[in-house]
């Protein structure tokens, strides 16, 4: 069976010769041209009227997608799924998400560039470029610059093409046939997948063997091996036998204010909330409540927070009538001193913030139990 024609090929000794030949061949009416060169040649795109590669656009789109999906991923994991506080800052701490976004951009961008080039624009896995069967291919990959006239819609005048290439200074003119290749079949795919699988197994066992055989070396140990007292760890340096030391008796934080209550027994009931009900107080209360209380009491105060299953004690429902009827002073007392299995927060939350939290808790309660006149 006659094989279809791929094109007529000629070799040129230098890149400049190739560039000069292209317009001459074009002048004779051959416009469907391809060039094969050992290295990228400047100006060849323009000479052949090749359209600009779309790869750049593809990479840009995919890289932007990488950034956006990383942003959504971070936002969902640390704001929606498991609200996370970065070192006491409010939710949505986006600056922390930028490094992963940058990495997502670069990762997806480079993968798109490499794989897109191979699989989308160069049509892998297609191994059968007819040029590979030409006699000239060895020299093209080493030293020669090839120009190929491809058949147009109406076929190719082989004799005319040969003459045109010769006139333009081409040597070693050759007619290249395009053999019919069968598509990659089941056998090919099973071999390919098998090979990848085998490579994974070898690499996995090889790595495991290396790790087990050679002791792990730590490249930098300076910071790790310094003499220091670890938090929560035993240590022989102090007589007490531990690293962390208790503050001397009677130590108070710099801004410490004792709870001014009538007596130890009254549970703070007589205290009044010194803060006004303003937007900024409620806003401050909201952030502080979300930071300190919401983990246990939920952001609505229902007591059904996301710690539920791991935290054994049942936090009180702040919407319950007991809490609703309790005075502000009593809530202040609970926050400051703790209550049964709830820890004390005097050390973590300043008095003003405690009062602001209470204002906010009142607002939360109102939001779940609004009287009819609020709705109207």
């Amino acid at each position, binding site marked *: 069976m006659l094989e279809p024609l791929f094109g007529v090929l000629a070799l040129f000794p230098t890149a400049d010769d190739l560039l000069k030949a292209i317009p001459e061949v074009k002048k004779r009416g051959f416009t469907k041209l391809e060039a094969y060169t050992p290295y*990228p040649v*400047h100006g060849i795109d323009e000479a052949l009227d090749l359209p*600009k590669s779309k790869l*750049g656009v593809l990479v*840009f789109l995919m890289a932007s997608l990488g950034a956006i999906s990383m942003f959504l991923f971070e936002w969902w994991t640390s704001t929606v799924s498991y609200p996370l506080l*970065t*070192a*006491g*800052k409010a939710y949505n701490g986006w*600056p*922390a998400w*930028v*490094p992963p976004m940058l990495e997502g951009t670069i990762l997806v961008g480079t993968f798109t560039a490499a794989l897109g080039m191979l699989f989308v624009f160069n049509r892998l896995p297609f191994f059968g470029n007819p040029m590979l069967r030409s006699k000239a291919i060895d020299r093209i990959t080493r030293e020669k610059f090839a120009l190929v006239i491809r058949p147009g819609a109406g076929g190719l005048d082989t004799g005319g093409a040969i003459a045109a290439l010769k006139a333009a200074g081409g040597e070693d003119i050759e007619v290249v046939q395009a053999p019919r290749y069968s598509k990659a079949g089941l056998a090919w795919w099973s071999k390919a997948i098998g090979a990848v699988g085998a490579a994974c197994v070898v690499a996995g066992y090889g790595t495991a063997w290396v790790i087990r055989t050679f002791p792990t070396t730590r490249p930098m140990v300076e910071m790790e091996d310094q003499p220091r007292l670890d938090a929560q760890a035993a240590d022989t340096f102090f007589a007490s036998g531990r690293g962390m030391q208790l503050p001397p008796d009677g130590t108070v934080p710099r801004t410490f204010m004792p709870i001014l209550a009538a007596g130890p027994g009254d549970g703070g009931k007589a205290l009044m909330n010194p803060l006004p009900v303003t937007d900024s107080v409620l806003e401050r209360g909201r952030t502080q409540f979300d930071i300190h209380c919401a983990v246990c009491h939920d952001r609505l105060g229902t007591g059904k927070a996301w710690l539920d299953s791991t935290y054994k004690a049942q936090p009180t429902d702040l919407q319950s009538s007991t809490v609703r009827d309790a005075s502000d002073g009593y809530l202040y007392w609970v926050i400051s001193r703790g209550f049964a299995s709830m820890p004390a927060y005097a050390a973590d939350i300043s008095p003003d913030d405690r009062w602001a939290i209470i204002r906010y808790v009142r607002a939360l309660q109102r939001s779940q139990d609004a009287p009819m006149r609020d709705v109207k």
Partner: protein
Amino acid sequence: MSAASVRRGLWALAALGGGGVAATYFLAGAQRFWVNWLLWFVFGTCLALGALFLVALQHMTGARWSVPLRRAAERIGALTPWLVPVAIVALFSLPVVFSWTQPDAASLTPLVLKEHWLNRPFFIIRLAVCVTLWVVSYVVLVRGSVRQDETKDPHATVRLRRFSPVFMILLALTITDFAFDWVSSLEATWYSDIFGVYLFAGAVTTAIAAVLLAVMHLQRAGRLPGVTRDHVYNLGGLLFGFTIFWAYIAFSQYLLQWYADLPEEVFWFQQRLSGAMEYVFIVLGVGHFFVPFLALMSRDDKKSWTRLRWVAVWVIFMEFVDVFWLISPVLGPGIHLGWPELSFAAFFVPAGLLVLGRAMRLGDDMPTGDPFLQAGLDFHLP
């Protein structure tokens, strides 16, 4: 318009601006005056040092494509000696705007700890050392190269290549010190180790933009025969790269201080992120990074001279906004933008253009004595 009438116009504008500058001192107060003075001092230093950096970078890497463009960078480096008077005048701002010279400074613990560094004699010595090193480097790098136009001595190229790494080390040390002394120490309790790099990144970005403008201007005037679109394209690529570098450094500085949330660090950002200053910050983030980043991303963008010209002007303006954002909040909350600022701009911009215009006649238009000039002119994009 003839060159002479442009020059006359610039002189007139500078004179007008000069009047406004003097008026600022008496009508708007010494503080406002000195803050503006520092602004232009820092901005001019960035531009000059950035240009010297580009010259030294080219010698150090042995790059050939940039040889025909080097004279443009060298000429912008000619701003360096003019820094001397501006720096000397700037010393008088010490008692007015620097927080560590204020009477209550002694009560702040961090300042007591920094006393060995932040005291007037040592501060002045450091400035003198820095400026001297810059001027000496300018003489060696630029004057040496201009002299080569006549001597055609290839050994000069070798000498410059040897000197460049030394200059790089000096630049790294002096620009860090300059950033710490003249910008950071305005708010002396603030710490940021990366700050020198931050200023450096902006400086180089601006210098590349300025070189781009100079090269396109001279090429259009037919004074750079042989310099092609490919050379200019490469400069556009550099500008693109350093835009990203600036953003990387700027964000790193912000992120670390945001994370750590230490009172002695975040107050600095609070001043620059609260109130009206926040808009300046947004303009800076968008304008200094996203605009040039997107405008120069594609290959065609860097081939269009119209676009390159606009981006270069914009980047230089943004660097000024950056310096404004760094220094101006010393005056207290709000944006301090009014006739004093306009007067300073009306004085320093034409003065700078006059200096640069004169510098554009320094030596030949290309380093004709450099043995690699022809190799540079032969450059084609691969």
